[in-house]
């Protein structure tokens, strides 16, 4: 029985306080239901998302390093869990840069000192995603034993997005053979949802891009990309797209509406966070996992399926 990650630092990030609140709610509810301890990083700041790096990549490294410094040096944790792909990606990127690049260490050292906190050093902390967290701390077997309300063959397309697997070099633990996550064919979400009773459809766009970085600045391209993701999921026979990133999730929901209004193309596939689906399988009520907070209305659908 896996005993790793029973108690980890939790970094929700800005999106989970806003548009991705359902992801925060369902992640916390899932931890509670599974008996896993999440301790929120104290007085955290934004990791820099996808924007600060375009102003200056070193500042993104600093912002992410401050979060890791608090988790490791002030709170004494050896692992921090970030459910948001953007946060997860940036913390991983900062870890890589600080191990690899003297200039990044210099900038982080200088800014940390000026800001009045300990500088983070590579190796102080391990950054994990919510998928790693459930996979390691509970595992498929453990999850299977705890399922009270099986997903009963719900047909799911698993959508991982860009930031969870690319670029490869910032994820040294991936692509390490059996048991590890794959950057070309990720499967952790598939594994967990299958353990909860879902049927994973063959979805070729698991790591395709939703255009999240330009969701407002170049909306037409985002709508095109999202529509492709939605229609391909429907063609693959999926009833639900399972997500693991608030930017992807909101992007899918937002451009599903935009495609309907601007292009007159309606798609009916539902969009739910994987934590929401796992929570429902553990017998939690839809409200407990924030289904009412999603833009994509799946309440009626879940009732029909006997999951609500």
């Amino acid at each position: 029985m896996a005993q790793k990650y029973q108690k980890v630092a939790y970094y929700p990030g800005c999106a989970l306080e806003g548009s991705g609140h359902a992801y925060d709610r369902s992640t916390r509810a899932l931890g509670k239901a599974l008996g896993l301890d999440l301790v929120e990083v104290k007085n955290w700041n934004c990791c820099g998302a996808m924007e600060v790096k375009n102003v200056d990549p070193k500042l993104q490294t600093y912002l992410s390093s401050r979060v890791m410094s608090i988790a490791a040096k002030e709170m004494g944790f050896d692992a921090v869990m970030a459910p948001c792909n953007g946060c997860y990606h940036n913390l991983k990127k900062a870890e890589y840069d600080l191990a690899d690049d003297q200039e990044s260490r210099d900038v982080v050292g200088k800014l940390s000192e000026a800001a009045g906190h300990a500088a983070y050093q590579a190796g102080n902390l391990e950054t994990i995603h919510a998928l790693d967290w459930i996979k390691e701390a509970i595992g498929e077997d453990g999850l299977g034993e705890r399922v009270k309300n099986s997903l009963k063959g719900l047909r799911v397309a698993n959508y991982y997005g860009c930031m969870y697997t690319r670029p490869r070099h910032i994820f040294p633990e991936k692509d390490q053979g059996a048991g590890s996550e794959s950057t070309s064919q990720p499967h952790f979400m598939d594994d967990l949802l299958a353990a909860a009773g879902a049927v994973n459809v063959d979805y070729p766009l698991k790591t395709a891009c939703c255009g999240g970085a330009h969701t407002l600045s170049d909306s037409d391209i985002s709508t095109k990309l999202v529509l492709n993701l939605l229609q391909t999921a429907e063609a693959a026979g999926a009833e639900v797209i399972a997500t693991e990133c608030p930017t992807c999730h909101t992007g899918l929901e937002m451009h599903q509406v935009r495609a309907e209004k601007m292009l007159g193309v309606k798609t009916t596939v539902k969009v739910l966070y994987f934590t929401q689906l796992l929570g429902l399988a553990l017998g939690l009520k839809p409200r407990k996992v924030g289904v009412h907070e999603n833009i994509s209305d799946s309440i009626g659908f879940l009732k029909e399926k006997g999951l609500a």
Partner: protein
Amino acid sequence: MPIHEKSLIRPENLHVHEELEIDGVDVSGHWSTFIGSRVVTDYNEDLEEEIAALPGGEHIHRCWQCGSCTNSCTVYAVNEDFNPRYWIYLIRIGMEEELLRDGDIIWQCVSCNKCTYACPRDVAPEGVMKATAHWLELKGHRPKSPSILFDEVFSEQVFATGKIEEGRIVRDFFRRTSQPLVQEWLVEMVRRMVRHLPLKQLMTMGWFTILRPRTRGWGRARAAIAEHVAEEEARRRAALGLVDKATE
């Protein structure tokens, strides 16, 4: 996906004559298209170094033109004019004027990093796209793109308070790009977003917008970041040979 290659022959230099006879030989029609001669005299020999001096462009010299970037590109699949390999080629040989002809779309890179994943030479083409977009704006060839304006609105909030508030980002961005906030699809999205929310949560969201989330004790970090930004800006301008008016 096959890569549609762009020719360095400009369309306006291709001449087809419906009826033309030269020295008694009929050369009418497409079979004898004439190419107007062009002498390129405007090479920017420093172009590669200028791009390499901006964040993300550091490894452009490694490129050996395999085309994996364009082949894997998300935006290329939507628009065949979006061709990272071609732009890297132009930058490396200094053909600035050709590069400027695509100056209006280079900012459209969505940072999906498929190119960086596929590149066998660790060029990090995604970074090169961002460096090139910055270069176009710093040199005054292009106005600030919507993408850069969004990055700036976002970063300003992070630098000011340590955190962002999404509603404010959307409002500030729409204001800065002179777009109306009331657009049919946005209104519909908000309607769907709030329809199941209990009143208490709506009120909390409202307060959040007014109070703004912030990191406590952020003042010293804010000052340190501002100083870093100013230093970095001066470094970039110097690298591109742009002399500040103030120091002139």
